[in-house]
Structure formats: C-alpha cells, structure tokens
C-alpha cells in the first residue's frame, strides 16, 4: 500500500497522540481517578461510568490537535 490512504492518515494521527496527551494532564488524571476509584469501592466498573471525564479528555485532545495543526 503506497500513497496517502486511510491507514497512513490514521497512523499519523496516532503518532501525535502522546504529545497531545501530555498537554491534557488534568483531564487524564480526572478520568484515570474516576476509573480506578471503582477498584477500591464497591461500585462495579461498567460502560460509560466515567463518560463525562472521558469526553472532557477527548475534547482537550481534539482542541490541542487543532491548535498544533500543520
């Protein structure tokens, strides 16, 4: 497979994820804390339990990506 296609674009986006992730420390911590709180408490982890925190993290990542667009 040569030339630009969905896989090369997808891979490029993935490569940027670590640096974008580094810019969203507080949101990442909030999401991480929400999920790990279930390991200690009686509440069982289920789908979308921490969706609010995850959406905040994702929004942060997307806006960081827009800021540093080539």
């Amino acid at each position, binding site marked *: 497979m040569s030339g630009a296609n969905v896989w090369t674009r997808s891979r490029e986006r*993935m490569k940027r*994820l670590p640096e974008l*992730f*580094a810019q969203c420390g507080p949101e990442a911590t909030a999401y991480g804390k929400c*999920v790990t709180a279930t390991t200690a408490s009686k509440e069982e982890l289920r*789908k*979308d339990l*921490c969706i609010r925190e*995850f959406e905040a*993290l994702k929004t942060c990542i997307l806006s960081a990506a827009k800021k540093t667009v080539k």
Partner: protein
Amino acid sequence: MSAMVYGGVSQTGSPIGGAMNVFDRNMKRKQKQWAASLEDPDKYEYLKNEVGSRVADRVYDIARTFPLALDVGCGRSHIAEHLSKVGLLFLTDVSESTLIFHVLKPDGVFIGAMVGGETLYELRCSLQLAEIEREGGFSPHVSPYTAVTDLGNILGQVGFNMLTVDIDDIHIHYPGVFEVMSDLQAMGESNCAWNRKSMLHRDTILATAAIYKEMYGCDDGSVPATFEILFMIGWKPHESQAKPARRGSANISFGDLGKINQSPSMDKPKER
C-alpha cells in the same frame, strides 16, 4: 550430533502432535520479520540483550565447557555475544521443548529464559479497565503467560532432571503507554494469540493511557512496565547425575541438624 532441527509446525502455523494451539506462529514469524526490517532494530533490542547476557551468565555458572551448543530462537544472537566457552554454536529459529529434550545428548543441559508470570500486568490491567469503561466488555490483549509453578512441572514431564527455575523481575520505564506498545511492536512482540482482537479503538487507547498513568505512574512522569523473566535449567538424564535417594533409605533425621557442628566426622545426610 546434527543441529538441523525442524520445528513441529505445519504450513498453516498451527502445531502438530496435539500441542495446545494458542499462538498463530505464521503471524509471529511475520511480526518478527517486520521488526527485523525496521530502520533501527537495535534500538528495541534492549530487553533481549539484557536477558541474553543473563542466560550467558548461567552458562558460565556451570563448571563445564561444551563442545557443541544450539541456540534456539536466537534472534540477533543476544546470547552468543557473551559466550566464549562453547566450541561450536548453532543458531536456529525453532522452539519446542520436547524437541529440545530429544536433541540433547545424555548429561546435556538445557538453559532457557522466557517471559512469564506477571509480565506486562500493568498493560493488561489498564487495557482491561479501559475496555470495560469504553466498550462494555474486554478481550485479552496480552498473551497468557506460564506461571513459575507450572514451569517445573512442564520440564519435569518432558523428562529433564535436576531442574532449577528462578525469576528475574525487570522493570522498564517508559514515557507512556503509547511508547510501551510501540516498543513491544518493534521488538516483534505483538500479540499473536488466536483469540486476539484485531482492533484496538483509538478511544480505548486514550483511556488506557490515562488509566495506566493514574494507576502506575511514577513521580517523574514515567510509567513502569514489568517483565518477569523465568530462567530454567534442566539436564538430560545420565547415570552420573545425582538421583533422589530411595524412599526409606534415610539414616539421619532432620532433628539431628542441630548436632552437625558437634560431629564434623558425620557424612552428608542422605535424606531425600
């Protein structure tokens, strides 16, 4: 003794002879070839180099020289670099423990190392939690590993004598889970179990990164990855080897251990 060993693997990548079919060996070969074709493969070989030198250490610990050795699954000859007391060294790409047993001469030794036990538990747990929260279920992404306790049984069943199994914990720090996964891929160590899921959603990867950092992150911002290396030594039986004594042949009791200092003329206790 010829060192041409052919693996017990059929064309489809599944083992013959009724062995448990956990891994897609054809896929593993493709992953290793891809990793070998990278621009800078040495950059990712740090773990194998370290384990290779520890295996070589164990070779040296044995007070014998060997005229002929076979390095099974040698990769980039991580072990051979450190060895000099071996006469001839053959390097191959095959690994089946019963095959190794048959290939050894009596009183030959098998020294091996593999990842096992708790290797990559941080990655496994973070992925599991992330998948549950994001997708509602989870599937295995890290291979099932041999437990230390099972290793002795496996080697014993094959027929090896005088087994020694010990564990080395290697903790490697990475900037984040992305680097852990990309390094594993570049080492050729991507998952190839038949039951692997073929996709990892971007959202799940993002969630994993956050959870990994929160659960295991260190003060300096890095995250650790554990590699539990199981080292094993087994000998092909030979009359010269020490055998366990016959049941009931003990003539000294453990209770007499306290008296050892008082009677230096006593022989070594012949207890089992």
